[in-house]
C-alpha cells in the first residue's frame, strides 16, 4: 500500500481541539466532520486538501482530547498519511483503529516542507520526498499492531478473534 500527495506542514503539539473543534462534535457524521477538519489551525485546509495529500508535523501530534473524530475527519477529508516526530498516545491508537496510516519519523518531519510531493510505502516504512529527492525510513509498527492493521482495524480483529472461539 502506498500514499502519494502534497504536504501540509504543521509544528509541535497540534491538538485535537484545532483539528476538530468541540463546537462541531454534536455530530459524528464523517463527511460533516471532514468539512471542518483543521478549522482552528488552518481554515484554508478543507478548501485546499486533495485526496492523497499528507500531513507532516513535529512533536506530539494529536495531543489533547480522546475524540476519534480527529483522525476520522482527516481520513475522510482525503489525508492519506500523517507523518510526525511523535504522536500523542490516544491519537495514535485512534488512527490505527480507524485505519488512518501514521508514521513516526523525526528525520522526515524535519526534512519535508509544506507543498513537497511525498510518497510513502507502508510495507517498507520508506518515505520518499519527490520534490527534494530525499528518502527517510519511518519506524515500523510492532507486530501486534501490524496484525490489527492487516485485519482492517480493531473491529475486524475483534470479530475474527470471536470466530476463533476467543475468550468472549
Amino acid at each position, binding site marked *: 500500500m502506498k500514499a502519494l500527495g502534497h504536504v501540509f506542514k504543521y509544528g509541535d503539539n497540534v491538538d485535537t481541539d484545532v483539528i476538530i473543534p468541540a*463546537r462541531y*462534535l*454534536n455530530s459524528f457524521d464523517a463527511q460533516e466532520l471532514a468539512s471542518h477538519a483543521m478549522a482552528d489551525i488552518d481554515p484554508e485546509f478543507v478548501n485546499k486538501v486533495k485526496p492523497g495529500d499528507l500531513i507532516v508535523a513535529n512533536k506530539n501530534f494529536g*495531543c489533547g482530547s*480522546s*475524540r476519534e473524530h480527529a483522525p476520522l475527519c482527516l481520513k475522510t477529508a482525503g489525508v492519506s498519511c500523517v507523518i510526525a516526530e511523535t504522536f500523542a498516545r490516544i491519537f495514535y491508537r485512534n488512527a490505527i483503529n*480507524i485505519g488512518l496510516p501514521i508514521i513516526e519519523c523525526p528525520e522526515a518531519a524535519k526534512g519535508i516542507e509544506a507543498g513537497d510531493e511525498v510518497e510513502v510505502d507502508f510495507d517498507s516504512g520508506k518515505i520518499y520526498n519527490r520534490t527534494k529527492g530525499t528518502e527517510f525510513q519511518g519506524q515500523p509498527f510492532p507486530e501486534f499492531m501490524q496484525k490489527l492493521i492487516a485485519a482492517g482495524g480493531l473491529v475486524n480483529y475483534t*470479530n475474527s478473534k470471536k470466530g476463533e472461539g476467543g475468550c468472549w
Partner: protein
Amino acid sequence: MGMTMTQKILAAHAGLDSVVAGQLIEAKLDVVMANDITGPMALPIFREMADKVYDKDKVVLVPDHFTPNKDIKSAENSKSIREFSKEQGLKWYFEQGKSGVEHAILPEAGVVVAGECIIGADSHTCTYGALGAFSTGVGTTDIATGMATGELWFKVPSAMKFVLTGKPGAFVSGKDIIIHIIGKIGVDGALYKSMEFTGDGLKELSMDDRFTMANMAIEAGAKNGIFPVDEKAEDYMKEHSVKEYKIYEADEDAEYDEVIEINLSEVRPTVAFPHLPGNAKTIDEIEAMEPIRIDQVVIGSCTNGRMEDMRKAAAILKDRQVHPDVRVMVIPATQKIYKQCMAEGLADIFVDAGCAVNTPSCGPCMGGHMGVMAAGEKCVSTTNRNFVGRMGHVDSLIYLASPEVAAASAIAGYIANPEKVGDR
C-alpha cells in the same frame, strides 16, 4: 526485575505474573465508560461486534459534555445513549439531575476503586489514578470494543516517578503542583508513560488535590497518573463505594525512566498561559508583569469542580464583589457538590458576589456551551486545557489556574495573587 504500580495492575489484569515496559498485552477491564460525545459514536461500532455489553454493571454512560442538551443534535446523541442504557439494563447511567461531570461522579458514586483497570472514552479518564487504579483515556473504537468484550490491548508503559516532599503553602493546591510539574517536563514530557506520584509530601495532599493532579497527567502526554493507596484513599473509598478494592504497590526495584523530586513547599500559585498547559508562570512572575485584564472566570470542571475547590473559591469571594468587567461561572461538578454548596452557604456567597452558579456540566471547558468566549476575550479557568479556540473563538485566551487564583482574579479584574486578596 521489579514492576511499577501501573505494571502490576496491568499484569494482574492480563493474567500474567509480570510484564515489562513496551510489552503488548490484552487486559481485562473493570470499568468501561463513555460520555454523550464519544458514547453515541461508539454504539454503531459496538453493534458490529455484539448485541449485549460484556457486563451491564461495568459499562458506564455519563451524558455531561453538551448537557443539559445545547441543541437538537446533542439531544439526539444523549437520547441514543439513554435508550441504549435502558435496552442493556446498565447499572450505571447518570441522568441529568442525578449526575455530574464524569470524572467527578464516578469516584463519588463509588463506581471506580483502587486496583482496577479502567478505560474511558475521554482523555481525562486518568483522574481515577488518584484512587490507585490504572485508568486511561481511549477513543471510540477502543471503547466500543471494551463494551463488547471487556478486554483491550495495551502497550505496557514505562514510568516517571515524582517524589513529593515538603508541605505546600496556604494558597497552593493540586492544580498549582500539576501545572508546575507540566511546566517542568513539558506537554509531551511523559508521552506514553505513567506518572507515579510518591513521597512523604503525599500526606499533605487531600483526595481532591490528587484527583486534580491525576486528571491532568494527560496534559503531559501521560498514559496514566497514579497515586499509592494510603489511609486517605482508603477512607475515601470506604465512604463512597461498596466495591472491593485491591492495593498494589510498586516494587522496591521497579525501574523508572526518570525520578523527579518536587519540594511542595517551593511550589508557588502557578498559572498556565495560552496556549499550552505547560506554559507555566508563577504568581510572582505574573505580578512582575503588566496586569492581565480578564473578561471571564470559570470555576468548575473534572479538574477543579469538587467540594474543596468550591470551599476555596468561596473563602475568597465571601463578602466581596466580582469585578464589574468580569463574568464568573461557578459550576459544581456533581449534584451532591451542588447541594453541599447550598447547605454550607457557599451558593449564597457565589450569587451574592455576582457569580452565575450553573448546573453540573462540562459546559465551557471545551467550548461546548454555557460560557463560550468572543474574539479577544480572556478567561481565567480552573479547567485543564488552554489550547487555541478551546473555549470559543480562536482569538480568545485561556489562563489555567487554581480555584483560589481564579476567585482572586474574579474580584481584581486581572490575574491576581490569592495571597493578597485581604490587602485590597
